[in-house]
């Protein structure tokens, strides 16, 4: 009994040795790597990605998929800002009071998630195609009303969370850690969390066991979108503006991190802790490439190749097939 428990544990921790190795390699490449500043930087740059991975991992474990997260991370803050800034700054001209920006941003996330849920659960459309369509539509909406422009006039209250430091650490990093901690505990120790695994493993059986599968799935989709909106808020704070391409192309990295971290695309398997280690491993790799002075023209190819190698390594260290 203890043996199997340890083994399950071990699969969760499979990436930790890899992370240690990356730390050593990083230190060898450049002494700056181990400095507190650099490491905090790595963490802060990864907060948005990690929130998306958190959301996507929940969705994947429940047996669905949400590609539209990478557009929500751009549209939610952009639309929220659009509603408060004047038309001259590419706003919509509604000019709502400034304090509404953050609640609006999160609300937009909720609405997008709920709409995804409506299409997937009520109309029973394929999650993959629905969210692929939404990915395009949401990005298009953002480009449409901003006319492809950056939104620079961001109120200070809106950038606060993404740029503040609490207890010597970026606030966004702390927010992320709290979000993961809540998620990890909820998925391990709460009935509602376990029901996500049950639904992903066999939705019919879950329903037979008295789980309200539709309600749970809807909640999961909304949480994922909400996390994406939160990530958008943090990203806007970190960068000081919202670009029309904010988040574009992130979804590949989101999947890579989740799968490297042991979340299965075959439903009902994986843990949030694993997903978090996946994000960290990718962040360290990218940082080392940058510090190592790899030509920016090559960084994309090398980064992509390394993700594939990381997938390979994760496959063999965890000893199980990735579906």
């Amino acid at each position, binding site marked *: 009994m203890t043996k199997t428990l340890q083994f399950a544990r071990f699969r969760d921790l499979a990436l930790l040795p890899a992370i240690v190795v990356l730390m050593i390699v990083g230190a060898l490449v450049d002494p700056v790597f181990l400095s507190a500043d650099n490491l905090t930087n790595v963490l802060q740059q990864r907060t948005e990605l990690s929130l998306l991975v958190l959301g996507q991992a929940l969705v994947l474990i429940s047996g669905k998929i949400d590609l539209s997260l990478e557009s929500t991370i751009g549209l939610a803050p952009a639309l929220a800002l659009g509603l408060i800034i004047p038309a001259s700054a590419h706003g919509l001209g509604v000019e709502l009071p400034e304090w509404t920006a953050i609640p609006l941003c999160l609300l937009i996330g909720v609405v997008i998630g709920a709409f995804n849920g409506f299409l997937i659960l009520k109309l029973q459309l394929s999650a993959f195609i629905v969210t692929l369509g939404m990915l395009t539509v949401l990005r298009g909406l953002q480009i449409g009303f901003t006319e492809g422009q950056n939104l620079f006039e961001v109120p200070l209250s809106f950038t606060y969370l993404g740029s503040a430091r609490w207890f010597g650490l970026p606030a966004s990093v702390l927010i992320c850690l709290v979000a993961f901690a809540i998620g990890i505990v909820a998925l391990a120790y709460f009935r509602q969390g376990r*029901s996500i695994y049950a639904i992903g*493993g066999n939705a019919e059986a879950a329903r037979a066991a008295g*789980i309200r599968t539709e309600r749970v799935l809807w909640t999961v989709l909304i949480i994922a979108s909400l996390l994406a909106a939160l990530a958008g808020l943090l990203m806007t704070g970190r960068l000081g503006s919202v670009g029309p391409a904010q988040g574009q192309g992130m979804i590949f990295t989101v999947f890579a991190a989740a799968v490297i971290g042991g979340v299965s695309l075959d439903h*009902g398997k994986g843990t949030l802790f694993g997903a978090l280690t996946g994000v960290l491993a990718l962040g360290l790799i990218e940082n080392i490439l940058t510090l190592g002075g790899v030509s920016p023209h090559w960084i994309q190819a090398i980064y992509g190749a390394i993700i594939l190698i990381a997938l390979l390594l994760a496959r063999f260290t965890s000893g199980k097939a990735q579906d």
Partner: protein
Amino acid sequence: MTAVQATGVTKRYGSTVALDDVGITVEYGESHALVGRNGAGKSTLVSILTGLNRADAGSVTFDDEPAPALADRDAWRRRVACVYQKSTIIPALTVAENLFINRQSLERRSLISWKSLHAKASEVLASFGVDVDPARPAADLTVEQRQLVEIARALSFGARFIILDEPTAQLDGPAIERLFERMRGLQSSGVTFLFISHHLQEIFEICQTVTVFRDARHVLTSPVSSLSTDELVAAMTGDAAGLRVGHTRPSLPADAPVVLSVSGLRSEAFFGVDLSIRAGEVVGVAGSASSGKVELGEAVVGLRKATSGTVHVGQTAVRSGSVPDALKAGIGFVPEDRHKEGLVPTLGVGENATLPIMDRLGRFGAISPTRRRAVAERMINDLSIKTSGPDQPVSGLSGGNQQKVVMARALSSDPSVLVLTDPTAGVDVRSKESLLDVVDQVAAEGTAVLVISDELDDLRPCDRVLVMFHGEVTASFPRGWTDGELVAAIEGVSAEQGADE
């Protein structure tokens, strides 16, 4: 007051009428049997009585109160617990979690204590004689253990009304006995059961009332004690011809060549099995769940790798652990786990039945739909598969009819060796006869047949029956054995010992 009452229930699936204005009344504290041929609508009624499906018409009451809204799953679960015909085990979760699914926090606290959950699960499993570590993923369970976990879950839930849809189809004798003991205990404390089975003797053993469905309609409800087996069969089938008694197959020609030879075959579950079957011979292998008989069959057909020993079909050696090799050598088989290894649920009946012979259905690798249709229609006919046509996805078939599709698939390649594991599990009494007739027919055409089962009806037509016990062949009976001596051998009591007592 009645525990459950359904009135005027009608349910259609497309053009198929699964239930046509049926009713059932289950009184408090009784064990009520529901019987009918494959596709009669039994499981459909179960899905309506447990709130998984909405009836097109009709009403359901529990304790004379209308059934809860379909969306209120909790309310349904308080009223009725169920072992569904189709497995509802979630393979990726642990055994313990499957057992306590959706009620993992035992004392209504919201935090789950995994330690006490595992302890509690061990207790429940032990009381059902299931010897597995509750912390293992349920994917590791055998078919029988899976079924026992489902039963343990339903019975330990504390419900006052429990539905069991063919709970015994995958269980061996002692496990069935244990289940019945449990049921009697619960019944004396006032629990009501609705019990579905194709083993009619079980109905007479455990139930007081029986309801018969035929072709989606209610035929009769009567006290069990006032019916004979023949009357019951007549009600199910609609004709008076009783069940066949006795079975005659021409005896084997002395010069029939050996087709399947197994020598020194060994794996973790069985040791050094030697076996040879001649053309046209039907050999049975009986044994309890732990006897290794299922594993032996799996090793012969390539589903399992043997650690040593050989399997030959004619002169050709079959590579161990390779199904394609076994198929090529001429072995067809019905696996134990029809959901995992037997069927592709989304594909049509015809496509499933012809999966092993795709290369023979057309030229240059193309598949001719008309040829496939023709083959499929013949099989549907031969095995009396109840379906709306060869294109119906097998997921829409009743459990017993799915089993027949697996059988059709095994037969499709005209195998020279046929290995059948529990071939009649979930198949109704009349279809069982036609299934066994088909086995006779292929044997008569020169196929060597290995029947792995502890269903006495499956074993009776065999030319000889081998008994396995703890991984070894311990006895061999030529045709003409008595039930008593075979059962004694299966349970590990040798015939002499039995005679001494």
